[in-house]
């Protein structure tokens, strides 16, 4: 099963909607609450990164029997130093964004913390792609 959402840069009104729909869909198909929570957090951060930093992008969710894969691909300024961006507290967000409680430098660290695998690739001046994997807990009897 694949879900896909278009995300517009600076659209704070719709922001969080993709993550909310994702979490709801996971619960509806019987994914456990803790896994749905982790996917929700990762999808939220991926979505907010596009809203805050990029012009537009897509958040895709692949739900497989053993794992959930979250993709985020955007057209945007890109990240020049990914290792730096992964550090807690580092952010390039503007002052007005920070005043809203975003841009605390927690987005990518949260994604890393709540996923089992995280890969960030970026090209400055072009965009950023993120792929996060969250393994589903082993089912009883399988």
């Amino acid at each position: 099963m694949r879900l896909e959402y278009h995300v517009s840069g600076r659209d704070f009104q719709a922001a969080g909607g993709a993550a909310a729909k994702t979490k709801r869909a996971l619960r509806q198909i019987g994914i456990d609450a803790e896994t749905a929570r982790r996917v929700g957090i990762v999808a939220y951060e991926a979505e907010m990164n596009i809203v805050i930093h990029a012009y537009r992008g897509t958040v895709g969710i692949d739900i497989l029997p053993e794992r959930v894969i979250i993709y985020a691909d955007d057209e945007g300024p890109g990240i020049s130093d990914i290792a730096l961006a992964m550090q807690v507290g580092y952010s390039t967000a503007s002052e007005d964004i920070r005043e809203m409680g975003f841009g605390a430098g927690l987005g990518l660290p949260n994604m890393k913390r709540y996923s089992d695998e995280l890969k960030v690739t970026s090209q400055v001046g072009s965009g950023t792609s993120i792929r996060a994997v969250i393994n589903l807990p082993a089912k009883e009897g399988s």
Partner: protein
Amino acid sequence: MSHGVRVRDIVDELECEVAAGSGQLDNKVAFGYSSDLLSDVMAGAGQGDVWVTVQIHQNIVAVGALTGLSAIIVAGGAGPAHDTVIKADDEGIPLLTTSKPSFEVVGILYRMGIRGRVRE
């Protein structure tokens, strides 16, 4: 989580305004969380928690819906933005407002028996 507190009890104790979600005041409260950084709340708060913040824009409702909060308390006297109220009503999340600062609110919640959610 044996305190048995519902959102309605918080409204009475804080003497605060109910800006939205008045139909959900029987929500049971699990733990409490206080922060103004949205990513921090996403990671730290959990199902049924009450969140104390001074943020007033509509994205607090998105965080509340995703986290499954029992209520959001906007402290410090800043009224929530109009679209925040509408969104909270849509999502069915009680939005409480008080002129008391965050520290006072958290102290009152703690006295009611609500504790912080501690994650490893």
